[in-house]
């Protein structure tokens, strides 16, 4: 048996949940979607992915770290943080759920990033299994099952409603707190829907992509691979791939002078930008080739080397859809693997 929520009761669910915490849902905008706070009347997007990933919730694009007041030679240091509210994010796909685990490995490792941790602890993830994966999806390559997001609570669409499964204590408590809006039902339709999704996943064009040839021990072979020059040739050095990526976590720390104080904020940064490693005495990555290589080496070699073989990519396919010149991690992996096997 499984808990079930009829589709026409989804709004009731959001309303009930909103009494306890802020609920964010994907909402359509021009040719894409983004998370918005649910309010009565909000229409939930039916799309597969939000344009940006859900990492914003824990690691926002910009965030104030600390403020300074300057007077003469003296400085006053102010911690600007306020209490974080509890919130839930609905409609998170399996790939994005996995990405949070990857971000955790960075931000929750010693020394813990308290800004991130705070948001993470206040957030509840409501996963949604995929029904119609896109051609750009390759989560299977990284061992992710699009039918089982493994979030705090998983929603599976079937039988004109959602089948609900809590995977964590936090999720269970949340489901229990909503009381009787769910009904008990036989789980068979949910299993059927998942099986159907898995069938589609097998048919996807990138379903045969493997991580063979990549990993923490492949530094020497891959770093000097001939393919990087061709692959990076057309790269325009923008940050699109980085900013839509659910696992990219590099950041910059900058000061902004407001005229009556200094706000020190951090913001997303991209290793694809020419000034990423530029310092007073020079720049160790002078051309786009090196910057481009860094991004993919980090996901496919450096990250697994430091994290028990786990790759820094979840196969969500956002970069495939949004790169201005259609260069992406799949093309990189295929070309380098081909080169490697040709040796």
């Amino acid at each position, binding site marked *: 048996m499984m808990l079930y929520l009829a589709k026409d009761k989804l709004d009731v669910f959001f309303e009930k949940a909103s009494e306890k915490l802020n609920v964010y849902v994907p909402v359509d905008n021009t040719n894409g979607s983004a998370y918005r706070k649910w309010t009565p009347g909000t229409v939930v997007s039916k799309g597969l992915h939000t344009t940006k990933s859900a990492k914003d919730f824990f690691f926002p694009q910009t965030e104030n770290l600390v403020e300074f007041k300057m007077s003469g030679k003296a400085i006053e240091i102010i911690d600007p943080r306020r209490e974080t509210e509890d919130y839930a994010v609905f409609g998170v796909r399996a790939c994005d759920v996995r990405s949070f685990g990857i971000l955790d490995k960075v931000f929750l490792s010693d020394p813990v990033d308290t800004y991130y941790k705070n948001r993470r602890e206040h957030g509840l993830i409501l996963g949604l299994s995929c029904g119609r994966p896109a051609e750009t999806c390759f989560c299977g390559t990284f061992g992710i099952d699009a039918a089982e997001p493994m979030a705090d609570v998983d929603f599976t669409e079937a039988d004109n409603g959602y089948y609900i499964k809590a995977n964590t204590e936090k999720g269970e408590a949340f489901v229990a707190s909503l009381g009787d809006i769910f009904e008990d039902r036989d789980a068979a339709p949910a299993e059927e829907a998942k099986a159907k999704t898995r069938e589609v996943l097998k048919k996807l064009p990138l379903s045969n992509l493997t991580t063979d040839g990549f990993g923490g021990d492949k530094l020497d072979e891959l770093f000097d691979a001939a393919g990087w020059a061709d692959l990076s040739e057309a790269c325009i050095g923008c940050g699109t791939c980085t900013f839509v990526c659910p696992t990219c976590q590099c950041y910059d720390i900058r000061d902004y002078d*407001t005229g009556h104080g200094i706000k020190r904020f951090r913001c997303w940064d991209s290793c694809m930008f020419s000034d990423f490693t530029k310092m007073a005495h020079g720049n160790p990555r002078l051309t786009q080739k090196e910057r481009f290589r860094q991004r993919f080496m980090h996901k496919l070699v450096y990250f697994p080397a430091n994290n028990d073989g786990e790759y820094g990519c979840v196969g969500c396919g956002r970069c495939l859809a949004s790169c201005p010149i259609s260069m992406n991690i799949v093309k990189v992996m295929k070309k380098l693997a081909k080169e490697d096997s040709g040796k």
Partner: protein
Amino acid sequence: MQVNEQFTPTIVAFCCNWCSYAGADLSGTNRLQYPANVKIIRVPCSCRVNPMFILRAFQRGADGVIICGCHPGDCHYTTGNYYARRRTTLLFSMLDYLGIERNRTRVEWVSAAEGAKFAATMNDFVAQITELGPNRRLEDLRCRK
């Protein structure tokens, strides 16, 4: 927008060194009054005013920006203000297009002899901005005091 009685706008006036700044000077020596909340920034020529200057003035809390230069034909550098004229026209049009109150910006040609015109212009502009209220559409919230 509700007009706040207490509202005293911050006005930034970019004045060309050769005409308008001298005009401001003359209005001062003639003891003509214009509000103290007009902050004059002296520039070598009205065409020195980069669109960025105007935006940054708004960012840092200006409620109105006025650019004053020599009358067309009288530019110390012969043609500078002709270029400024095209640039400011296009920029103002763009700001208007973005829905930012068009009356927050103005260009006036004020010669070195027009001290009275300078004071009158500033008084008029300050009144206009006071009526518009504080700049909210082109404001950097971090800079709000």
